[in-house]
């Protein structure tokens, strides 16, 4: 590992990963290697056990009653595509927020072109949605609410439990994009009335890229068409897609090596405990926000308090292009950040940073106080240089 690098881009993908993730992937490649659910030999069965066990651990993490209600996907985007393209029909209406990532917005816009009505509920300048505004947007043909659990730009955590309650009251399906929260924020699909939960494996779940999933509430799968069909290892005698979970949505050989890593990553999260991970990250965010809020020229976006936010923080240095700040952070200070629009133009319009974007720092469990102090010093230096230009 390069110890000179300060990696603050965990909202894009987390790094480093726990050693267990890497060891599990190596073990699969070296000692197992079989295709899960395809053959009857011991290596195939062992591979299938890994995949099943990954589902079980994810089910434990999200309080999903049946592990087989979790579809394993390439990423959160694929899960959201299943939810949007498989579930919505022309004539339906859906509600979403003004803080969505393009992984929600683009599939919804694509369905809009096919006759689905979309209402984008505006959020306040911190990126927070008012559940009352969601209720006002409900129409006769409203079928679902698609909402991010937390913004990837500002880290703002949405009041998903409140929205879940009103979705239930109005008979609407609630689909939550948990790309930024799965693993670092408590998620309970039963308690929060979540019907569809899309998550990624390579961020706070500490799996590798190419992993993720979609939880589908039992019974709801019947109303969702698969967007990809093919071999499943089950019902081989019939030439139509099986209708049962999770095979209905899992065609083709899965990313077994990735799932082996994901399983180890989730195991790590369960062993540490989401509450402990969250409190560690809150400490880092608090330290960073307190450290930079007095710096001249720094503009912070989103909530200034650490409650109801993830460890993703957006900021700008007044008068500087965020891309130039990010480049200087990398080249002069070894700090890895992400600048620009973060695939979420709607969110940047909401917080008033469109089209310029922001610089984003996103911390993880593996970051240290020392790294936060160094990054604050770096921003101080960059800010000073700005005045001398």
């Amino acid at each position, binding site marked *: 590992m390069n110890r000179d690098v300060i990696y603050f881009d965990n909202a894009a993908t987390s790094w480093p990963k726990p050693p267990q993730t890497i060891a599990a992937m190596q073990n699969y490649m070296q000692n197992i290697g079989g295709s*899960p*659910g*395809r*053959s*009857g*030999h011991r290596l195939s*069965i062992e591979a*299938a*056990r890994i*995949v*099943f066990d990954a*589902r*079980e651990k994810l089910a434990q993490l999200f309080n999903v009653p049946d*592990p*087989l209600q979790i579809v394993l996907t390439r990423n959160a985007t694929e899960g959201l595509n299943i939810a949007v393209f498989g579930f919505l029909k022309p004539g339906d209406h859906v509600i979403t927020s003004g803080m969505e990532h393009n992984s929600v917005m683009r599939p919804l816009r694509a369905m809009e072109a096919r006759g689905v009505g979309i209402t984008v509920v505006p959020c306040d300048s911190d990126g927070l949605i008012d559940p009352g505004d969601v209720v006002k947007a409900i129409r006769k043909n409203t079928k679902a609410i698609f909402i991010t659990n937390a913004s990837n730009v500002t880290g703002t955590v949405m009041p998903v439990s409140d929205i879940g309650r009103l979705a239930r009251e109005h008979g609407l399906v609630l689909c939550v994009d948990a790309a930024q929260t799965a693993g670092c924020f408590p998620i309970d699909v039963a308690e929060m009335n979540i019907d569809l939960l899309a998550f990624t494996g390579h961020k706070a779940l500490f799996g590798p890229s190419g992993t993720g999933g979609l939880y589908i509430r039992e019974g709801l799968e019947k109303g969702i068409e698969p967007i990809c069909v093919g071999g*499943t*290892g*089950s*019902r*081989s*005698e019939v030439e139509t897609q*099986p209708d*049962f979970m*999770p*095979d209905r949505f899992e065609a083709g050989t899965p990313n077994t090596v990735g799932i082996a890593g994901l399983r180890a990553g989730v195991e790590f999260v369960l062993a540490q405990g989401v509450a402990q991970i969250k409190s560690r990250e809150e400490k880092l965010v608090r330290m960073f926000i307190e450290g930079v809020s007095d710096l001249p020229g720094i503009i912070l976006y989103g909530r200034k308090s650490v409650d109801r936010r993830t460890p993703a923080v957006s900021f700008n240095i007044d008068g500087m292009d965020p891309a130039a700040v990010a480049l200087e952070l990398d080249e002069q200070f070894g700090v890895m950040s992400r600048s620009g629009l973060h695939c979420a133009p709607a969110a940047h319009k909401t917080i008033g940073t469109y089209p310029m974007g922001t610089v984003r720092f996103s911390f993880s469990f593996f970051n240290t106080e020392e790294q936060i102090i160094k990054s604050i010093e770096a921003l101080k230096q960059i800010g000073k240089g700005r005045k001398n230009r």
Partner: protein
Amino acid sequence: MNEKSQYSVMLFKAVSYVLKAEKILKKENLPHKLIPVPKNISSDCGICLRFDPALQNKIEAALLNKVEVEEIRALRD
């Protein structure tokens, strides 16, 4: 007829269901074995659970309302 060569197999929709059943039976200490589905039963390429017919009631009770079982067949080697 050799009674000892008799066994039963339990068939499921897919391998993930077999593994779900396997976890439950392991927990309940009910002996079983995963084997490829015998060709004379199904053309499917999956695996099934093989067990002693004497345990059928206990195994069925353990899986009730937890794993959907497709079929149980008594077989002979």
